[in-house]
């Protein structure tokens, strides 16, 4: 019998019931909840008179709507001036109180972006199934978990039953063969992967990221890669468990201890694809070929190396794709064939569930240290992923480095990744952003987003245009 992939193992361990047509009832170990995609689910439970199936499986925090401006007069809660946004956060607080769910509220140091806080707390464990009403839930696959985003109907379903009705995806392996060069980060790796497979390349698949280029990454780097699996069309991305995974989890508040720890580690060591496991599709990318990446268009697949140029639709033979490229160039205010390093920026954003962890902030601080934000850059902001990341960065003096360089140092939240709070681009503004989506209007109506790594965003902020961070 052929071996199993990591995804096969995670799936098989969670099937409660299989129907004749192959649809399965899949058990969910951990459910993360935030304010935007949950209110209608709680309302549905109330209307049907249903209870939570397993209260302790849930962990909640507000992140999308929270202000990131520094607290004044004792707390950010007073800072939500938008009454609609405030009501949404209050609704989460009330729902969590009513149903007994642990919530890291806005004034809790453990509050932050849901995909940052759960691994940080050890609430994400290898071998788990984990879901959240947010597509970037794929992040948690970095720890050898099966994790993906769900809609609000499924949020309600998980709250009420601790299960999801699912069909199994196909298996895809994306292997980064060989090491990547110096100055090339996890963000560059995943952008290069999306450039290769396209935004729909992973649709219908669960992607396992492997190969030397992935194994060499830290757990935080693997989170960056898995985070953007959804931008390649795959709901779930994952990386096999190794010693780094186990070391990362050990000692975190929600991690098992003592005998349970030993037993857990023994099972976690099996969480890798067997040597003879069959994949439905395999993509291999030579690590040495990956350069620092910059997106130029309105889809994450519209990406080139920093030493490249804005592509020319005239060179694209596929008519639909060429039309899409032309529309993107108009929206982005760019001419074909412009060198990437001649594109000036107006703002820089370092943050989001993709790139707001301590290693991301350290990488940006190395570039920012002793330099100044360029005159043409109106705003450069750093938004830590959680209160604990922020505190750690401040212990290391990173806040001082950023502030001295002219960056704004903010409170944790999703912030300008999706601009649901006050942090946004104005029409026509161009941003070097460490977030995950460069869709039209994503960071503010008419805003122009270029996705890059934290080091590249910092480099663009201090030079005023995109530049190869390896030249620093």
């Amino acid at each position, binding site marked *: 019998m052929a071996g199993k992939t990591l995804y096969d193992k995670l799936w098989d361990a969670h099937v409660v*019931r299989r129907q004749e047509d192959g649809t399965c009832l899949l058990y969910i170990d951990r459910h993360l909840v935030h304010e935007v995609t949950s209110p*209608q689910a709680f309302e549905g439970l109330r209307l049907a008179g249903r209870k939570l199936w397993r209260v302790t499986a849930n962990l909640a925090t507000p992140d999308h709507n929270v202000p990131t401006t520094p607290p004044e007069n004792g707390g950010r809660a007073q800072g939500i001036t938008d009454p609609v946004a405030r009501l949404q956060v209050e609704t989460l607080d009330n729902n969590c109180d009513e149903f007994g769910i642990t919530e890291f509220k806005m004034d809790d140091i453990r509050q932050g972006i849901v995909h940052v806080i759960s691994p940080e707390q050890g609430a994400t464990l290898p071998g788990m199934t984990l879901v959240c009403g947010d597509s970037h839930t794929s992040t948690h696959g970095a720890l050898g978990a099966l994790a993906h985003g769900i809609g609000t109907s499924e949020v309600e379903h998980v709250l009420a039953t601790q299960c999801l009705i699912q069909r199994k995806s196909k298996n895809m392996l994306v292997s980064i063969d060989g090491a990547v060069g110096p100055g090339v980060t996890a963000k560059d790796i995943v952008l290069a992967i999306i450039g290769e497979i396209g935004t729909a390349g992973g649709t219908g698949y669960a992607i396992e990221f492997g190969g030397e280029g992935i194994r060499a990454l830290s757990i935080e780097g693997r989170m960056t890669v898995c985070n953007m699996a959804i931008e390649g069309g795959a709901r779930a991305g994952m990386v096999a468990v190794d010693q780094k995974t186990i070391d990362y989890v050990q000692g975190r508040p929600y991690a098992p201890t003592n005998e349970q720890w030993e037993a857990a580690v023994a099972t976690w060591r099996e969480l890798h694809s067997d040597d003879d496991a069959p994949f439905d599709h395999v993509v291999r990318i030579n690590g040495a070929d990956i350069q620092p990446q910059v997106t130029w268009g309105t889809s994450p697949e519209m990406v080139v190396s920093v030493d490249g140029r804005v592509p020319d639709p005239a060179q694209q033979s596929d008519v639909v794709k060429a039309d899409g490229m032309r529309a993107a160039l108009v929206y982005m205010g760019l001419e074909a064939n412009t060198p990437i390093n001649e594109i000036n920026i107006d703002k820089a954003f370092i943050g989001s569930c993709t790139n707001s962890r301590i290693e991301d902030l350290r990488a940006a601080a190395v570039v920012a240290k002793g330099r100044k934000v360029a005159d043409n850059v109106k705003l450069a902001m750093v938004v830590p992923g959680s209160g604990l990341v922020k505190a750690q960065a401040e212990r290391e003096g990173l806040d001082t480095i950023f502030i001295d360089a002219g960056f704004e140092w903010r409170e944790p939240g999703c912030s300008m990744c999706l601009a649901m709070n006050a942090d946004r681009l104005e029409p026509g503004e161009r941003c070097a952003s460490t977030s995950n989506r460069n869709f039209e209007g994503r960071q503010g109506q008419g805003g122009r987003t270029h996705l890059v790594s934290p080091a590249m965003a910092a480099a663009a902020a201090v030079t005023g245009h995109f530049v190869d961070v390896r030249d620093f």
Partner: protein
Amino acid sequence: MEKFKIHKGLVALMDRSNVDTDAIIPKQFLKSIKRAGFGPNLFDEWRYLDHGEPGMDNSVRSLNTDFVLNQPRYQGASILLARENFGCGSSREHAPWALLDYGFRVIIAPSYADIFFNNCFKNGILPIVLDASVVDGLFQAVAANEGYAFSIDLEAQTIITPDGKGIVFDVEEFRKHCLLNGLDDIGLTLQHVDDIRAYEERRAQEAPWLFN
């Protein structure tokens, strides 16, 4: 959820690939804590000339007359013909809520993003997948004929075009069953309470740290 048997309706065109959920319903409208009322803000940034915010009176905003759904011939459309990878991006169920609230019951495209596809079924919207070449032919037929409408028979898994031609489509048996009967997933799953309990008991032995 409303049952889906046979749906007859006018077809509108969305002629671009990778239409993302930020375009379908921009983020500022996600602050609502309700399921209804998103229809007036469907495709807000393409549909109106000004910037939309929750609470605005949409009836007085200036429309982008170039946008396809603002054209007189597509008023009242309930079937959306679209391109590859429709609904990519975020998991926001507000996207199908907005489409449904606007009046769309059926989407036809060569491919969809997984989460969006799944979310449609949970809300009584039927997302149909057809070959890109077939979709392309339909685009031309709709563009050339004002008032072009389909009759869609879910039981028979068939789209009937105005000239009486039938186009057969695939749909997963379980999803079809739920749509035809307007079934609530949670109610169905709770029929298997014993299975879930048995699974939990077994897992709590195998992996007790998952139940701390």
